[in-house]
C-alpha cells in the first residue's frame, strides 16, 4: 500500500493547520491560558502528561511505521512462511517496566496536587474570603456569608489571594467551572463541596479583567447557556465594592425608573427577585443588576437585550424558571422601557 504515506502526511498537515487556526483559545475561557495558581498547577500537570504521551506515541509510531513498511508481503513471496515466534521475555519485561516508570513520573505530581487542591483547612479562618455558591436551574447565586451580601451571575473576587468556595445546588446537579482559573467541582444536591481558587492580577489584566464561568454538568435544556462571569478586583477595590454593596439601597432616580419600580412590584417580579443586597431568593438578586456584564449570563448587557429578555425569556433560555411566571405578552413597550430603566439603574458602583 503506497497510499499510506501521502495520506498520513496530508492528514498531519491538515490537523496542524487546524491547530494553528484555533490557537490556544480565548484568554477568558481557555484552560490552556491559565490565570491563577490552581489553573497553573493543572496546566503544568497537563503539559507533563502531554510530554509523556508524546514519548509513548512516538515510540509506538516508530515501531509501527518500520513494521508496516519493512514486512509487507512482496511480489514473489506469496508462499513464504515466516518463522513462528512464540515471544520474547526480555522484550516483554522492557515494555512492562518502562510504562510503569513513565506512569510513576505522572503519579507523584498527581497525588500531591490532589491533596493540595483539596486543602481547605484555612477556610475557617476569620479573614479567609469565603463564597457560598448555589447553583440553580440556569443561574448562579454567590453569597458572601461573612460580609452578609448576596449577588448573582457575576462573581466578584479579590486577586492574588486564595478564595474559598462552598458549593451546593438548589435543584439538580450542576458543576462550577472557570476554565482559565481552575478545574471544576460539582454542585451536588445532597452535600456541600469545598475548594479554593486563586486569581492572578497580572493575567486578569491581560484577559481584559473578566473570565467566563460555565456549568459543566448536563442540567436540562439551557445547560449550554448557564454561563456566569468572574470579575477579579484588586483587594482595595474589592473591599470598596463590598462596602458599597452593604450600603446599597434600591433607589429609582428618574421618573421613568419610578414607574419601572411600580411595574416591578405589580408584575410580581418582586416575588422572586430580591433587590436588597443581603437577601437570597428564588431568582437572581438584582441589587447590583446595573453593574452586570451580561444579562441572564447569555446576552450582552444592553438595554435592548434586557427588554428582549423580559419580553420573552423562553426565547433566550429555553426552559428557564422565569418563563411563564408573569404576563410577559401583556407588557407594552412603554412598560418595558420603564422596567429597563429601573433595572439598569440598580447599581452600587459610582
Amino acid at each position, binding site marked *: 500500500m503506497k497510499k499510506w504515506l501521502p495520506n498520513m502526511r496530508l492528514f498531519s498537515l491538515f490537523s496542524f493547520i487546524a491547530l494553528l487556526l484555533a490557537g490556544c*483559545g480565548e484568554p477568558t475561557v481557555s484552560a490552556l491560558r491559565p490565570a491563577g495558581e490552581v489553573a497553573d498547577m493543572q496546566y503544568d500537570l497537563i503539559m507533563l502528561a502531554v510530554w509523556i504521551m508524546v514519548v509513548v506515541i512516538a515510540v509506538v509510531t516508530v515501531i509501527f511505521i518500520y513494521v*508496516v513498511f519493512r514486512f509487507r508481503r512482496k511480489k514473489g513471496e506469496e508462499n513464504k512462511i515466516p518463522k513462528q515466534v512464540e515471544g520474547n521475555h526480555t522484550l516483554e519485561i522492557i515494555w512492562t517496566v518502562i510504562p510503569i516508570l513513565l506512569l510513576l513520573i*505522572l503519579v507523584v505530581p498527581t497525588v500531591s496536587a490532589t491533596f493540595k*487542591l483539596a486543602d481547605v483547612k484555612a477556610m475557617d479562618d476569620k479573614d479567609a474570603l469565603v463564597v457560598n455558591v448555589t447553583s440553580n436551574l440556569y443561574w448562579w447565586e454567590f453569597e458572601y456569608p461573612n460580609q452578609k451580601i448576596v449577588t448573582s451571575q457575576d462573581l466578584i473576587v479579590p486577586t492574588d489571594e486564595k478564595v474559598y468556595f462552598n458549593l451546593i445546588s438548589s435543584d439538580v446537579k450542576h458543576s462550577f467551572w472557570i476554565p482559565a482559573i481552575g478545574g*471544576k467541582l460539582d454542585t451536588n444536591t445532597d452535600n456541600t463541596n469545598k475548594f479554593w481558587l486563586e486569581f492572578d492580577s497580572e493575567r486578569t489584566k491581560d484577559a481584559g479583567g473578566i473570565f467566563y464561568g460555565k456549568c*459543566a454538568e*448536563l442540567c436540562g435544556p439551557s445547560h449550554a447557556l448557564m454561563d456566569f462571569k468572574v470579575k477579579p478586583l484588586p483587594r482595595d477595590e474589592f473591599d470598596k465594592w463590598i462596602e458599597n454593596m452593604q450600603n446599597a439601597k434600591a433607589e429609582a432616580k428618574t421618573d421613568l425608573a419610578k414607574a419601572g419600580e411600580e411595574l416591578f412590584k405589580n408584575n410580581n417580579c418582586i416575588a422572586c427577585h430580591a433587590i436588597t443586597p443581603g437577601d437570597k431568593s428564588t431568582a437572581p438578586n438584582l441589587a447590583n443588576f446595573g453593574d452586570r456584564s451580561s444579562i441572564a449570563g447569555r446576552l450582552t448587557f444592553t438595554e435592548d437585550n434586557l427588554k428582549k429578555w423580559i419580553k420573552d425569556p423562553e426565547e433566550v433560555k429555553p426552559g428557564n424558571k422565569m418563563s411563564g411566571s408573569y404576563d410577559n405578552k401583556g407588557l407594552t413597550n412603554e412598560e418595558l422601557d420603564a422596567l429597563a430603566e429601573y433595572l439598569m439603574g440598580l447599581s452600587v458602583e459610582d
Partner: protein
Amino acid sequence: MSTLTQKKGFGAVLWDYLTTVDHKKIAKLYLIAGGFFFILGGLEALVIRIQLAVPDNNFVSAGFFNEILTMHGTTMIFLAAMPLLLGLMNAVMPLQIGARDVAFPFVNALGFWLFFFGGVFLNLSWFLGGAPDAGWTSYASLSLHSPGHGIDFYVLGLQISGIGTLIGGINFLVTIITMRAPGMTYMRMPMFTWTTFVASGLILFAFPPLTVGLLFMMLDRIFGTGFFRVELGGNTIIWEHLFWIFGHPEVYILVLPAFGIFSEIFSTFSRKRLFGYTSMVFATVLIGFLGFMVWAHHMFTTGLGPIANAIFAVATMAIGVPTGIKIFNWLFTMWGGSIKFTTPMHYAIAFIPSFVMGGVTGIMVASAPADYQYHDTYFVVAHFHYVIVGGVVLGILAGVHYWWPKMFGRMLNETLGKITFWLFLIGFHLTFFIQHFLGLMGMPRRIFTFLPGQGLEAGNLISSIGAAFMAVGVIVFLYNVIKTSINGPVATADAWEDGRTLEWAIPSPPPEYNFKQLPLVRGIDPLWIEKMQNKKGMTPAEPLGDIHMPNSSILPLMISFGLFVAAFGFLYHPDGKAWSLPVIILGAVITFGSMFLRSIKDDRGYHIHKEDLQGDDKEVRA
C-alpha cells in the same frame, strides 16, 4: 445449506429466524439489529454535528438536542456496539473452540430477543412523548427532575435488554468452560475466544449493579420511593456509583472483544502466530480485573475527597501497563511476518495508532487534578471516541469484513472495502482530534449550542466535516454488502487462505451442526498446524455418529415480548391510566406463561443421522 434456505418462501425464512436457536443465525440477527441501531445512532451523531457546526445554530431545539445526545450515547453503547460484538462472538466463538453450538441455545435466542425488544421499547419513546434527555449516564437528580416519560423508557428499556446481555454472557462463559473440542485447552484457545471469555465475565459482574441502579430509578420515578430523593433522605451519589461500577467495566466489555478480533487478524495476515500469547492472555485477564477497581475516575469532580481521588487515579493509570503489553505484542506479531494488506488488515493496522491516542488521553484524564479541567468537556468526548471508534468500531468493521465470508459464504469487495476504510479513518480523525483542543479551550460537553467569540468556531466546523466523511464511508460499506450479496464471489472454507483457527476448517457458511466430527486440537492455531504438515483439514477426534441438535422455539420471543408489553403498563402506571394494570398482568402472563410452558414441556432436541451426514460430504471441501 444456504441453497436450502433460498428455496424456502419468505414466510418460512422469517419463521425460521424468529424461532431459531442456532448460534449462527442468532449471530446474523444480532448483526442486523445492531447494524440498524448503529445507523440510527450514527444519524443521531450527524444531527449533533450539524447543530454544532456553527455557533448559535438552531437546527434543533435545546430540549430535542438533549434527547438526541442521550439516545446517541445509549443507542451506540447498548444497542449497537455491544450487540454487534455479541453477534461476532456468536458467529465465531463456538467455531473457534470446535463446538457444535453454545451451551444453552434456547437462552442464546432469549438473550437476543430481550435485547431486541428492550431496544425497540427504548426507541419507541421518540413517538410516545419524547426520548430520555438526561445523558446516557442519566444522573439521578436530573433524571428525577425530567418531566414526561423519556427517562422511564430509558430505565425499562435498558432493564430488559440488560437481562438479555447478562444471560448471553453466562451462556458464552459456560460454552467456553465445558464445550471445547478435545485437545483445546485453555491455553490453546484463540485470542478472540479468550477475550470473549473475559468480556463475558465482566458482563456477569457488571450488569447486576446496573440492574439494581435501574431498579432504584424505576421505583423512585414510578412508585415514589426515596433512594435518590434528597428530601426523603436519599442520596444521588448512589446512582453515580452504581452506574459507574457498571459503566467502567462496560467500556472494557466493548474493547476486549475488539482486541481479540485484531489479534486474530494480525496473526492471520502476518502469517505468524500471535507474539507473546501467554502474556496477552494474562494482560486480558488483568485488564478485566483492574476494570472493577477504577470506576470512581468518572467521579473525580463529584467531591469524593482527595484520598479516594488519589487511589482511583493511581489504580486507573495501572491499566495502561497491560494495555501497553498488548499493543507491543501486536506490533511484534507483525515484526518479521509477511503482511498482506487486506481490508480487515487495514483496519487492524489503523487501529494501533488510533487506539494508542485514545488510550494515552485516558491516562491523562486519569490524573485527577488535571481531570478537574478535562471532565465534562470535549476533551473527554475526544478521549472516548478515540478508544471507542478507534478501538471498538474499527474492531467491529474489521471483524465484519474478516468473518463475512465465513458467515455469509460470499467475499466482500476489497476495493470498496478499502474505500470505506479510508473515508471512515480520515473522517474519524478529522472529527475527534480537534475535539481535544475544543475541550481545553473551554467547551463543555452536552451543550446544544455555543456562543460566538470564544474561539470555538473553527474546531467545531472541522469536526462536523469529519462526521460527513464517516457517513459516506458507512454508505459505501452498505453498498458493498448489497452488491456482493447479489453477485459476490463465493467463499471457500479457508476464505483468506491464511486461516489459522478452527473456523476456517469448515465450509463457509458452516453447516448447521458446524463440525461433522469434532476436531482433534494439537496446539495453538490448530488449522495452521495441520496445514504446515500438509494435511487437508483437521483430524477428527471422534467417529462419525448421530448429531444431537436443539429444537427451534418461538418461546424466547414470547418471553421477551411479554416483558415488552408489561413495560408499557409500568410506564403509564403513575399516570393513573386504568388500563395500565391489566397490561402489566397481560405481559406477565405472556412471559411467565411461556416460561412455564418451557419448563413443563420437555425439549430433547432431535438427531441428524449418520447416514444423512455422509450424504453431505459432497458439499464439504477443505
